Each structure stands twice: as C-alpha cells, then as structure tokens.
C-alpha cells in the first residue's frame, strides 16, 4: 500500500490507491483516470502548506477524517425540500443535481434546439464532449483537478448550440447529501458554441447531511468564437459543506466570459481556483468576486488570467469582508504572454477587515512578457472610512446603522454588476443577513 501523504494517517488517505482500483472498476474513461491518478501522486498527493499555492490554506485537517469516496444511496428530494433551501429563482430553467447526478424529475431543461443538457455519463458520444473533455490547460497543475479526474462520479454536460441564445438562465442547484464523512467529485463540461449566448447560475445546499463533506468539483468551460457565457457561482451552504472548486475556462476569438463568484456560506473551507485562458484575439473577460468570511471560516480565491493572444481585455474585481477569526486569501495572477500585444488587463482586490482577529492574505501578481500593453493591479486592506462614518453620523444616522450602510455599500458595488435582477436580489439578501449580524456584534 502506497502512502499518499506521509503526515496523514487516515483511512481515506491511506487507502486511496486501493479505492482507486475498486471504485473505478468498469468506470468510463479508464485511461484518463489512470493518468490523472498517477499525476496526482506525482504532484505529491494532497498539497500541504509547503506548496506555494496552498501556503495559507491548510486542507489537510479537512481531509484527515474523511471516510469514504463511495456515494450514499440516492434519496428522493421533495419539492418542499428544494423550496426550503431558499435558493429557488424565478424565470430560469431549473436543473437539480444530487451529489453531481442530474435529477430529471426536479428539473426543467431548455429547448433542445437552444441547448443540450446531459449527464456527463451520457455525453461521451457528443462531438463537443470529445473535443473539450479533460482538455483544459492548467488541469495538470491542480492537485485537486487530477484527483477529480481520477475519481469523478458524474456531473453536467451543457452545450449551447451555435447561434442560439438560450432564452432563460440555467439555474444549476447542487444538492449534497451524505450519510458519513464523504469526498465527492462532481465533474462538468460547459460549452458555448459559435455565436451562442448562455447564462448559468450555480447554487449549492446540503440536504440531510450527516457528517462532514468535501466537494471537489471541476468545471471545464469553453466559449467558442463570438459566444457569450455569463457564469454565476453563488456559494452558499452550511459549515459541513466544504468545497474546493476548479473552474477552467478557455476562450476563443471575440468571445465574452463573465464570472461572478459570491461566497456567502457557513462552510469552514471554500477554495476557488478560477483559471481563464484567452486563446485567441479580441476576447473579453470580467471576473467579479465577493466573499464574506465569519467565525473560523477560510475563504480562498486563487484566480489566473492568461493573455496568450493580442487585443484581449480582462477586468477583475474581488472584494471581501473578513470578520471574527476568519481568514481570507486572494491570489490573482495575470500573465501577459509574449504574443499578447495590445492587452488590457486590470485587477483589483479590496478587503474590509472588521475584526482585529480576522486575517487576509492577498497577493496580486502581474507577469508581462509583451511590450505594448495596459495593465494595472492593486490591493487594499482596511476598515470602514472614518470620514465617511462621520459624514453619515453628522446627518443623524447612528453608529451601527452608519457602519452597516458603509459595509453594504462596499459589497453592493460588486452585486450591482449582476445582470439578472433575481440573482442580485438573492445575493444581496444573503449578504445583508451576514453583514448585519457582523456589524451589530
């Protein structure tokens, strides 16, 4: 038996190689899985804090006590349970997954001429699947993406058809259920074909959870020429729903990709790896993030944007509010490769640290190998502006109310970028709930 991480002695860790052969007996894509598992082992298994990208995020404690990779028997989720998550949105195609498995009886799919929506396990014959599955640049760099490829169970294949404008947003609700501590690996592939337009909203909730759970998901997304994809990741959920999310995007010429990542959960661990690769000319990319970390939460956003070709534009704005004893991590890399002349790349990360015991580690990184580009990056860490606070008070507004207004204003600068009113409303309501609790402490 091979030991994956020598500093860990837990059943799941130590038995991964055994589990790999037993769980994957007869599984689809055996070659890809085998290769990925070998790569995972070659990378050293689970990353420790000695690995640069995991310096401030120690995942080991979260994996130490995980018992299994074996999904529990499916449960019948009721409409009432769905309703109770508080996540439902009007005017969307609702697509419900349970531990990564599509639940057709709870879902409404878009018209087939606009988009194809399939379980990954049913998508192998699709040309778009063959062209793009397991093909993203940077997959090989991510420990957890390799682990996902090795063990993934199922997920969602979405293809917006060429020139089709998918009428309503797809609302993908990820439900997670476990009967003991579980590692689940959902895997998705989303493709917007030439000239297509699609909006995808993700939400998450635990349902009948028993024990802790780590969701290690991979989304590969591709925007073909002149297509547009807007991708909302609304990360909600309870303390036992920990997640490590890899979102790997490849953009072709003149395409637009917008990502909105809102981390508004009680989860003890959220790590997002968002990598966007601009593979052809005249692409446009907007990345917006907002995170609130309370209690002992750890919220980590690692993003990268690779400008590989000329005349592309990327714009990134992430903001966070850190409270209690929470920790936030932001790492934003922009690479402007040698051929990427006339690049416009902007990045900004602002943090409000409200409690003296909260921490933020933020590192904007810009590497430029072209000579005719416009790039800027910056980061701020601070408290509520005393001058603004005094201005509000001088108009009769009390201290708690004034602070609350200023913190909300800081947050709602980001939510104002959301183009779907119902999503904006939901996100602002959830954010307000967390922020009010914090400000009134």
């Amino acid at each position, binding site marked *: 038996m091979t030991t994956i991480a020598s500093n860990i002695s837990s059943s799941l860790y130590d038995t991964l190689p055994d589990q790999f052969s037993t769980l994957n007996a007869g599984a689809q894509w055996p070659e890809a899985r085998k290769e990925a598992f070998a790569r995972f082992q070659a990378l050293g298994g689970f990353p420790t804090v000695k690995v640069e990208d995991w310096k401030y995020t120690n995942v080991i404690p979260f994996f130490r006590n995980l018992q299994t990779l074996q999904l529990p028997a499916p449960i019948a989720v009721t409409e009432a349970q769905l309703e109770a998550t508080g996540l439902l949105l009007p005017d969307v195609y609702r697509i419900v997954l349970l531990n990564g498995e599509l639940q057709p009886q709870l879902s409404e799919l878009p018209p087939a001429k606009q988009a194809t929506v399939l379980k990954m396990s049913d998508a192998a014959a699709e040309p778009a699947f063959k062209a793009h599955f397991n093909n993203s640049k940077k997959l090989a760099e991510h420990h957890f993406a390799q682990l996902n490829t090795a063990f993934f169970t199922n997920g969602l294949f979405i293809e917006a058809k060429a020139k089709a404008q998918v009428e309503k947003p797809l609302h993908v609700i990820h439900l997670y259920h476990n009967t003991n501590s579980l590692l689940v690996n959902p895997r998705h592939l989303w493709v917007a074909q030439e000239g297509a337009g699609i909006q995808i909203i993700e939400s998450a909730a635990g349902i009948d959870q028993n024990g802790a759970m780590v969701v290690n998901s991979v989304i590969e997304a591709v925007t073909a020429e002149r297509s547009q994809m807007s991708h909302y990741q609304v990360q909600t959920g309870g303390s036992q729903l920990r997640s490590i999310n890899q979102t790997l995007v490849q953009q072709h010429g003149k395409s637009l990709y917008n990502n909105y990542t809102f981390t508004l959960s009680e989860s003890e661990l959220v790590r997002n790896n968002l990598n966007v690769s601009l593979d052809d000319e005249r692409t446009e990319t907007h990345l917006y993030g907002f995170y609130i970390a309370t209690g002992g939460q750890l919220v980590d956003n690692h993003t990268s944007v690779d400008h590989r070709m000329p005349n592309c534009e990327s714009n990134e704005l992430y903001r966070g509010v850190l409270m209690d004893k929470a920790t936030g991590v932001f790492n934003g890399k922009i690479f402007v490769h040698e051929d990427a002349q006339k690049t416009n790349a902007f990045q900004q990360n602002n943090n409000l640290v409200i409690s003296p015991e909260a921490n933020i580690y933020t590192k904007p990184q810009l590497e430029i190998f072209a000579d005719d580009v416009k790039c800027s990056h910056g980061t701020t860490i601070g408290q509520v502006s005393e001058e*603004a606070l005094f201005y*509000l*008070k*001088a108009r009769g507004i*009390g201290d708690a*109310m004034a602070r609350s207004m200023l913190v909300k*204003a800081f947050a709602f600068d980001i939510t104002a970028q959301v183009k779907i009113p119902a999503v904006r409303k939901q996100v602002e309501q959830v954010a307000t709930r967390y922020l009010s609790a914090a400000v009134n402490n």
Partner: protein
Amino acid sequence: MLNIKNLHAAVEGNAILKGINLNVKAGEVHAIMGPNGSGKSSLASVLAGREAYEVTDGSVEFEGKDLLDMSPEVRAREGVFLAFQYPVEIPGVSNINFLKTAVNEIRAYHGQPPMQAKAFLDMLKSKQKLMEFDANLMNRSLNEGFSGGEKKRNDIFQMAMLEPKLAIMDETDSGLDIDALRVVSAGVNKLRSKDNAFIIITHYQRLLEYIVPDFVHVLYNGRIVKSGTKELALELEEKGYDWLKEDIRLEEPVQ
C-alpha cells in the same frame, strides 16, 4: 439657542481653540471670518463632534442642553447641521436611501414613526424644487463623481430636507463659481426663518453679499478678537487681516 463659553480645544495636544465666547439666538446669522489657521474650521468640527478634537475647557449649550456631551449623531438629531467644507463621496450608498435613513433616524429619536414612502417622495420633490436641485443626482451614489458645486448644493439640499435649528456652514463658498455661489446662497436664504440660526464660516466677504449676516466675528489664533455687524466684513475685505493682528499685538501683555 447656542451658547459657547470659554471654549478651549486641542488636536493631538496642540491647542487650537483658546477661549471662544459666542452667543447665537434663533433667527440670527453669524459670520465667522479670519485668516488661514485661525481655528474657524476647528470650531465647526468641535461643534459637530469630530472625534479628533479634544475639548480641554469651557462649555457649549444648545437649546439648554450640554452639546459636548452628545455624540455626533445625537447633535444632528437635536438639530445641529454641519455643511462640510469637503462633502464626502460614498460609492454604493444612494443619495435617496441615505436621506431616507437620515430622516427616519431623526424621526425615531423624536419618537415619530418612519415616514411613509409617498410622504417622503412628496417632501423630496418639493425641496428639490425649492432648492433647484437636479433630480438626476438623487438616484446616484452619495456625492460620487459630483462636481465641487454639486457636492455643496447636495449638502444644502440635505439641510433643506433635515430642517435643522442650527446650521454651521464650513467654507461652503470655497471652490464654488459665481453661479453655484448664487444658487447655494439663494437656497440658504430660503431656509432662513425666525426659528433657526446660521453660523457661516468663510474666508471672503463675497458670500456675505448674498447671505447678509446679522453679526460678523473675526477669529484669530483660536479666539474671537473682534465682533461687529456686516460692515466689519467690508472693512476686512478692504484692509485684510494684518491691521487686526497689529491691534492684537498691542493688546497682548508685555512679557
């Protein structure tokens, strides 16, 4: 209305106000003039309750209550209004929401229920008309991207909405062109009544051509060294402050 007695204040241990005495009655407009660094803006800050200022001696009574004992928000709710020299930009807080919150916080303090949406909008519209305030600015973030003139006009508009008893205008004329100065002054004149009072802090006599004061005081080195009527302002405009400094030097006891 306002009774300032022997007010001393310091910032980081440096004495800034060194014994101010001033009595303001309802219906009066007092102008406070003086050279740079004489303590004019500091007086405004102390009255509004800025934290950086430490009152080291003296007292301030407002409507019979101890003003210095109140937090900035309570002062505002009691009816003290500071028009800022530099109104603050607050992105993400809409002008209209800010005003509604302020109005309702003040009402709550006086035991009144929150204003109904319709009543609030009616009030907003009538004050906009009165103050000639651009309605388009209402839905924008508070002062964000406003020109200097728009910010000052917004402050005066807030004054109209909150209907304070005592308004302290801290160099409201600075950075205003002549047209904006006229509009702002006209606004203030419309708000003047026998029940409220104004303290107007300014460098220049120009503003006082539009808002005619009942009294003019000269602040120098943390004290009011001369008081008079509006004619004093004209004299200052003509002669500058140096002759006053001479007078004061003569009055200082020989060491």
